[in-house]
């Protein structure tokens, strides 16, 4: 099973620019995560901020977005 999974990934890598897809998907993921956290924070203040400084997530999201743009 791990072998077939590896083969599946290898095949996909050969066919598409996988790194670009991963970067793009991570950017989407971080966008949704940031939006979800902001919505949760608006509904229940401090629910996220006590655990995590959202600025760090915002910086990560910006880096991810800039990387994506530079590659394009």
């Amino acid at each position, binding site marked *: 099973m791990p072998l077939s999974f590896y083969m599946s990934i290898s095949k996909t890598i050969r066919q598409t620019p996988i790194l670009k897809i991963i970067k793009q998907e991570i950017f989407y993921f971080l966008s949704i*995560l940031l939006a979800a956290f902001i919505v949760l924070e608006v509904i229940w203040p401090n629910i996220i901020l006590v655990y995590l400084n959202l600025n760090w997530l915002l910086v990560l999201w910006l880096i991810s977005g800039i990387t994506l743009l530079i590659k394009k």
Partner: protein
Amino acid sequence: MLKPFLTKWPFLFKFRLFLGVVLLVLIGLFLYLKIVPGGQITYSRSWPRGLATGKGFIYDFKPGERTAINDIGDSDSGTKANRDSLRIIAEPVYFSLFTPRQFNRAIMTITYRDNLSSTTPIIEAGVLKDKISGFYDLQPVQNNILDKLGSDWSRLEDSGRSFILQAAKNYSSAAEFKRDLASGNLKDCPAGKITACVALYNYSLPISYRLPENQTSAPLVINQPLRGAHQFYVYFNGPWHLDFDFTDLNLDQAADPIIVDVSFDDKIVASQTLPDENKAPISGEPENRSLALKGNSLAAGVYKVDIRVSDDIVINKIDSSSDKLSFINKIWPVSGSKNLTLFTDVTDLQAQTSSPASLQSLSFGGRRLALDKTYEPFNFLAGAGVKEIKLEKDDVVLAGNGVFSFSSHSLFNPNWQKIDRSFSSTAGAKYIIAGYQAPRVKNGLKTTQAEFNLSDAYRENGKYTFLISVPGLKTSDGTGDYLEIKEIKLELAGKTIFQKIKELF
């Protein structure tokens, strides 16, 4: 089933599915932490904070000038200790505990190192119970007086955390002592003077004061305005009344409701509330209000009156059916009258003023003392017994462990002697009953626990307010004393999600 997923489905789909699951898990995790379904959770704050990026649950240590945490890393010679801890250099220090939901009980565990002198033997922690009057439920953290007497006096274990200390070994069991205490005949104590013979710390006993038969009480009117929340004892026998005139100064934005509770034997027997429509906040235009309570005391005894108001309210007049009336622990006479005389039994008087016009030389127990700085508490010590306080100008907050009144005839203290920082084992107490556990010491750090009932604690915007108090700790005395906090941990317990659901149906 897994094989087709791994081999046939496109990579993009699988990757998105993976990220989707991560997203849901993260959101679910935060919702779980918001709801706390099991009803129990622990929050902590330690110094240094490590890798934590969030603001944490325990924060907002203020006022900043009473802590030395801002000195972090400002030099490379000797401030390493500050970096590793929160230094409390003056008291009290307040902090907030954010909780995502309500809890009923909190156990606070404090790990600290104390660099305190013999003038600051007590450390206490408290939770805010009443926002209007600023009442905190204080619990012991450390009491060096009891720790020292614990080795000098004979100790009897009582239930839970409480114990009895006796100067001479008169009793061999707590049950025997309590039997004599209930009958009012303790060994080595003069008859009728039992409240002066037993000192309490974090322990309460019912008040059983009776006015001596040769004394009677007459009606009393106090026309001296008093600012903010006050509590007083008053002795009633038969029908009674209490009439109050208040003035709302309208100096601050918040509404100023007036609540007066009259209690007997720790049970409220009469209560009145005057809500504030707050039509003219911060206008500075005084607004007069009045309130009256009456009742019939079936048994003669001491009533406790709790006037719960903010500092924006002045009590202009108190009209009482009894002149046995003494203010408890604090009195704040205001409104510019000159040469005021008060009577008190406190031994450690604290005087403070925020008004430059009230700086003066006051007299306490016949000694003249300088009150020469605003916003700074001044402590004055005197011997036991009733003493006079003479003020040249009012608007001074007078506080201490005891009672205050405007005439020596009115002054009476029905309560048991309490252990405070000025307590002396040679002052007459033969027994001590305390609800206290000494801190554990490990590697030079002390650790102790304090338990709080949060069900009636004040909570605003999801935050409880706590304080750490070290009576007598201040920077102006130049002693360099401080309390160094390494960790504060709060174990909270409340209703489980199943109990909450059960309540709905």
